[in-house]
């Protein structure tokens, strides 16, 4: 079955403003979603670290980031299995992250 990648865009400020109770509710919803049988893999990405590598003038430059492109970063990803792109979209419609930010879906070429 084709694989699709879900990229979660995150704004850390949104999370910072949640009460502990609201945060717990969110965690429970995310983890319940993670346990769906169609989810192949999923990881959170550390918001505080990141490196960007670029080759410039024959030399690889390593910079911290990406922080410059606004406050939104990728907070996590999933790989899910679905019969079609439509189904992948349908399966993602109830993702709890949609309360906090955007979800980007990409199809893995197979």
């Amino acid at each position, binding site marked *: 079955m084709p694989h699709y990648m879900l990229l979660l865009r995150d704004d850390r400020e949104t999370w910072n403003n949640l*009460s502990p*109770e609201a945060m717990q509710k969110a965690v429970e919803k995310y*983890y319940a979603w993670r346990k769906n049988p169609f989810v192949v893999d999923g990881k959170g990405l550390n918001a505080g670290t990141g490196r960007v590598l670029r080759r410039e003038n024959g030399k690889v430059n390593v910079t911290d980031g990406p922080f410059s492109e606004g406050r939104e970063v990728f907070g996590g990803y999933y790989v899910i299995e679905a019969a079609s792109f439509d189904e992948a979209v349908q399966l993602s419609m109830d993702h709890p992250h949609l309360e906090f930010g955007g979800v980007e879906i990409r199809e893995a070429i197979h």
Partner: protein
Amino acid sequence: MLEHLFRMQAGRTVSWLAGLLGSQHLQLAEDAVQESMLRAAQSWSFEGIPEKPEAWLFRVAHNYAISMLRRGSNFETKMDDLVAAMETRTLQIEDVCTEEQLRDDELRMIFMCCHPELPQEARVALSLKLVSGFSAGEIARIFLVEESTVAQRLVRAKRLIRERNLSLGMPANGELRHRLDSVLQVIYLMFSGGYAVPAGEKLIRQDVCIEALRLARMVAASSIASPPVDALVALMALQAARLPARTDAAGDLVLLEEQDHTLWDNGLIAMGFYYFDKSMIGTAVSEWHIQAAIAAEYAKAQTPQAIDWRAILAHYDELVQMNASPIVALNRAAVVMKVHGADAALAELLPLETCSPLHAYHLLPAVRGHILAELGRFAESEIAFTAALKCDCSDPERRFLRKQLEVVRERQRAH
């Protein structure tokens, strides 16, 4: 995951860390807790809940505090000592300190939050934030005020703690009594905020009532326990027991004397009477004792008809002696009507009409309207209920008052 784990853990961890770091580093303790929650959210959302979630959160907050202390060369005091002291504590976290230690930290925290040098409204907000883990937004929703107002109160209170060097040490014997009174008052204000007639937000309000009860029981179980503390626990448990019966399926208000007693929470009633009996030790009678005695009278009655209004009035007579508040006098007037009739009750209201704290308080004209209707003076009753509806009150109360107004108009037409 345990219900309310994050919220409970937030209070415990702030209290514990502030105990280690000192009240001067309250902000660092709060930041560390916030960081631990954020990291948990990032990790647990994908990896699931760890085996010992409390220990996980303690450890992350503790390590964050140490790393911030190490980094913070701008601190004026000897950070090295503090870091060293913190590190020796790391070992203990694995066993998640003892319950006893944690309770002691929470107790010290609430006693600091209720320091007489802090303004009264700030004490309530601060306790809910630091000891109980509610956010400024949640506190604002409970007390129906703006979130920015709560945030400001919190900031000012924390500045006062820093500037006046208010510590987490328990007050000395002479002052302890006084401080305990403040703590009990704050806990009951918390409870009353949650107990106030629900205007939406039913769940969070119930949570606050239960939290206030937990804090009072914690004080009651500590070495500074005294009969008034037991009386306060009894009062809150007996009142909280009635929460399920207070509104009907449509969310409309049900008067105490018309409530379906089978809906009352028997566990809380049993807890209430247990603490009520305990509070009888000794001879001193506090206001909490009398209020608990009134709540106990209602709870004792198996049916609304069985309520012993004379006994309740006797308690109110005693309460008025100790607390000259017009609200107490108003509540008493409603009981006077049950015992001595509407004419007598109306006379009780007269001195309250000019009482400024009751100005714009909807229950004064509402009680007056009720009494006048009982006397068959429907035209005046209508005026009173109309006046009540002009005051601020919650939606269920408004619906209730409107219904009363309609009934009075109906009876006036039939007359």
